[in-house]
């Protein structure tokens, strides 16, 4: 509400702060919340927590492989360096979260509840398409208020392994391979060149690990460890690849 009036007075406060502080942390002023002009509390404590992120999901015959980095940032500070962005929605349906941490956590928990209820009523494991539509319903209805880019992936009996992309704005589209998050821009080319239909599970795992490593190397908002999961009829298998074990690519 105070938004349109805040420009002028707070600008002067920012200048004042930079002169006062002995060793100022040079932070560009992003702040969007109402906050008191306290010089003692630095900017990044008031910024929203975002999963900067690189996320990826690949279909193969018999299941899906999903992967994500593990960095959550508030401004330039890494709030959590071991985040798990692969969130369980149901036994064999997971989602990869990117965008605002609060928004995606809230949506994922709501959809998990709705899907769990639906599955009990149905007395059957739910379809991946159902989960994707529940995400789309929330993301589209509240599109003005939310910042959430989600990949829904899983296995069901009807269509096997499926990947659905629900980007910011609330579109829903099924794709054999999908990437998301701020780091995804760096790996579209790698993806287009290296993905081939008919890969098996291990090949998909290697492709995902390689793609995520490349994105984490270039994107400041992505980093930490690589979390992988494969979902198939047999169940869910989770893996973690630590920093020193990541595939290495060097430009020189």
């Amino acid at each position, binding site marked *: *509400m*105070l938004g349109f*009036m805040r420009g002028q*007075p707070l600008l*002067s406060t920012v200048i004042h702060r930079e002169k006062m502080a002995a060793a100022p942390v040079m932070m560009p002023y992003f702040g969007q919340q109402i906050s008191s002009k306290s010089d*003692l509390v630095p900017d990044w404590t008031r910024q*929203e927590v975002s999963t900067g992120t690189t996320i990826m999901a690949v279909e193969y015959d018999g299941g899906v492989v999903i992967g994500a980095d593990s960095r959550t940032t508030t401004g330039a500070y890494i709030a959590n360096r071991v985040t798990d962005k692969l969130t369980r929605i149901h036994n064999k349906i997971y989602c990869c979260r990117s965008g605002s941490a609060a928004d995606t*956590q*809230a949506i994922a928990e709501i959809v998990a509840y709705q899907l769990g209820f639906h599955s009990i009523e149905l007395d059957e494991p739910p379809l991946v398409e159902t989960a994707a539509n529940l995400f789309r319903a929330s993301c589209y209805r509240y599109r003005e208020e939310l910042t959430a880019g989600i990949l829904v992936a899983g296995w069901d009996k009807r269509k096997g392994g499926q990947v659905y992309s629900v980007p910011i704005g609330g579109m829903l589209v099924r794709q054999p391979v999908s990437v998301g998050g701020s780091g995804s821009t760096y790996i579209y080319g790698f993806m287009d060149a290296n993905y081939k239909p008919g890969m098996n599970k291990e090949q998909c795992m290697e492709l995902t690990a390689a793609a995520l490593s490349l994105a984490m190397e270039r994107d400041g908002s992505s980093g930490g460890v690589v979390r992988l999961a494969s979902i198939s009829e047999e169940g869910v298998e989770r893996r973690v690849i630590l920093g020193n074990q990541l595939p290495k690519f060097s430009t020189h």
Partner: protein
Amino acid sequence: CYCHCECYSKPKGFFYVCIIYLLAIKVGCSVPAARKTGTTICGVVFKDGVVLGADTRATEGMIVADKNCSKIHYISPNIYCCGAGTAADTEMTTQLISSNLELHSLSTGRLPRVATANRMLKQMLFRYQGYIGAALVLGGVDCNGPHLYSIYPHGSTDKLPYVTMGSGSLAAMAVFEDRYKPDMEEDAAKQLVRDAIAAGIFNDLGSGSNIDLCVITKSKVNYIRPHDEANKKGVRTGDYKYKRGTTGVLTKAVTPIDLELLEESVQTMDTS
């Protein structure tokens, strides 16, 4: 048309307050700032439970409003919560969830779980879209073991073995990243948390005074306030009073003034 005139004649209500606020800043007056706990708070999971730590300084802008405030709030007999951000928000939020959790516990007939408190807190904070400025470190021990969560004002949470929040969190996190080990003993964990808060107190202007600790295990809770008085007020070594006779007296004339004592009341000043 009537409406139009009203708007142009005189600003009213909320917008009037905004304009006054802007004028006050232009003129140079300081507008009262919300009291914030500048703060360093942290928590660590050790072998038998969790240790929560906090400093005790509350600031109003650049002035220390409270030199010894309590930032570790009670949620339930087995769950405590440290709060950073706007002091009123952390106080009221933790009290509300504590109350609801007690009702929930009576309804289920069980000791409340930390995950339940976490869900209640995050759902409330998300509902208010970050306008409730409460950044919390929630820790406790329940039937599934010790748990530690960090909760941000917008409603996102992280479940981790060690967390720090507040303006001094970077200083405290540096200590944790250097010396944290899984499955520590209670004394080592207490020392680690004490050192992390001390790092915040001595390197961050928004944190200061004493170190409070809260050790939660399966069997008991040890609320240690203060654990360490890191900033005790010193004793004055000198005096500004001069002895009679230091200045030579040349003449002295005493004129008594007739005064009638009507009322006498004594009020002691708080010099704590």
